[in-house]
């Protein structure tokens, strides 16, 4: 963990002005009260382009306090451009302590992953959301999709999943896999892999979703039922991996495929860098680590 630092003078705490924070805070409270419902909010221009997580950043800025410890991940990694930039942004404007350790963080902003280490009560996970409307590509008119949510009319999504089965033999959606919240609202979990969907169900942590360009906030309070859509004869299945992580040997984590040469060679490694590093620090060894035990090597 990196301790709190003195924030740069001349910025409002966590960048946003107080009136903007109040507006976002009011939207967050209503989102929590209506789990899975997209609450409109007046998203501001942020000092970075849409698509870089402006929704998540505004939600983080609205809740962050001086006692928080912030972790930011991009596809599971703490050390990629998006994560590094957002972490530095809040160090500069809020002076908060930051960490890469999932267990140490009170607020985790994420682009498209849920950490492997189970989240605890008191933690808040904030998702960066590109497209909050799960029905968008089935019905492009927002006026219509809002009425469909009002009527809980989600037949179109079931037809889409059924057509997947008819065409491919299975539900082909592997990320942004739609979920039903508390048996009522259809929700886009943001483009997390469907591998992560079960982690949302009855999580002890608070989950907040911010879509900046689309100006929507939605939420899952702790201990909320979150079910991935499926059919009785085609139940939801988590993505499975054939090989363990090449660095830490994990068999229960979401893996990224990495091309390692120009002859088709590839390796699979944990997408969650903190999970992988923690396991290696505990002495676990995957096949491609130099000091891997013989039986682990290919």
């Amino acid at each position, binding site marked *: 963990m990196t301790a709190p630092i003195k924030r740069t003078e001349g910025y*409002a*705490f966590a960048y946003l002005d*107080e*009136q903007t*924070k*109040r*507006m976002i*805070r*009011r*939207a*967050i*409270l*209503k*989102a*929590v*009260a*209506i*789990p899975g*419902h997209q*609450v*409109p909010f007046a998203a501001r221009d942020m000092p970075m382009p849409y698509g870089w997580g402006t929704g998540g950043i505004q939600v983080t800025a*609205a*809740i*962050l*306090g*001086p006692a928080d410890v912030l972790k930011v991940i991009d596809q599971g990694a703490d050390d990629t451009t998006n994560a590094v930039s957002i972490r530095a942004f809040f160090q500069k404007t809020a002076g908060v302590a930051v960490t890469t350790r999932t267990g140490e963080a009170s607020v985790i902003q994420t682009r498209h992953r849920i950490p492997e280490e189970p989240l605890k009560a008191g933690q808040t996970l904030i998702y960066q959301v590109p497209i909050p409307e799960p029905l968008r590509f089935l019905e492009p008119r927002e006026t219509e999709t*809002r*009425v469909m*949510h*009002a*009527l809980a009319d989600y037949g179109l999504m079931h037809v889409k999943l059924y057509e997947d089965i008819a065409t491919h033999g299975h539900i082909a959606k592997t990320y942004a896999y739609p979920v039903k919240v*508390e048996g*009522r*609202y259809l929700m886009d979990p943001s483009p997390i892999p469907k591998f992560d969907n079960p982690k949302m169900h*009855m999580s*002890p942590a*608070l989950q907040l979703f911010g879509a900046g360009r689309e100006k929507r906030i939605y*939420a*899952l*309070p*702790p*201990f*909320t*039922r979150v079910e991935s859509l499926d059919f009785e004869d085609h139940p939801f299945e988590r993505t499975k991996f054939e090989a363990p992580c090449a660095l830490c040997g994990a068999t229960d984590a979401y893996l990224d495929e990495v091309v390692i040469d120009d002859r088709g060679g590839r390796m699979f490694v944990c997408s969650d860098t903190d999970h992988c590093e923690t396991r290696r620090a505990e002495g676990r060894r995957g096949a491609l680590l130099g000091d891997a035990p013989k039986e682990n090597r290919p």
Partner: protein
Amino acid sequence: MAPTATTIAPGFRDPVFQSQATFRAVLDALAEPGTERPVEGIATAPAPLAPVAAAVIATLADFETAVWRDETLRLPEIEAWLAFHTGAPVALDPARAAFALIGADDAPDFTDFALGSDVDPSTSATLVLRVAGFDNGRRYRLSGPGIDGACEVTIAGAPTDLADRLAANRALFPRGVDLILSGSTSVMGLPRTTRIEEIR
């Protein structure tokens, strides 16, 4: 009579950080109904506006949100304090209020307030209900999102028909009001999703 500057008592000593702390308490309270979350009230708020309720409304209300207040709070000092510290317009019609400051006595029917629409249920009112505290009162069993199974809470000084009011409110889901109970040193949230029954 127009209030003069000298009649207005101070609000937050440190608006940025005290409103952030109050917001997090309210957020946690609504995210985990039935849990008591400590709030540092604004002791200088003019009575009978309770310090914790004053902190909650100073945190959440501004020129965009009309605030309805019950009879006991319609005093010039309180009007002036709320106008100065929040800039929130006075709602004379409860149906037009984003927030309402209410007590157990003469609390209007919850359906008098904005309930939101089926298309946008988030436009409903948030009621800040002052209660005596969270011990030595009526006991309730709560369940729903934010609660691991069920929990029991004690609320002193709430309307005697609270469970019936909230059951009727729950039946409107996804429409309905959300409650922030403000005690003497803490808040408790009862969002529209919470199922409540009184333990007799």
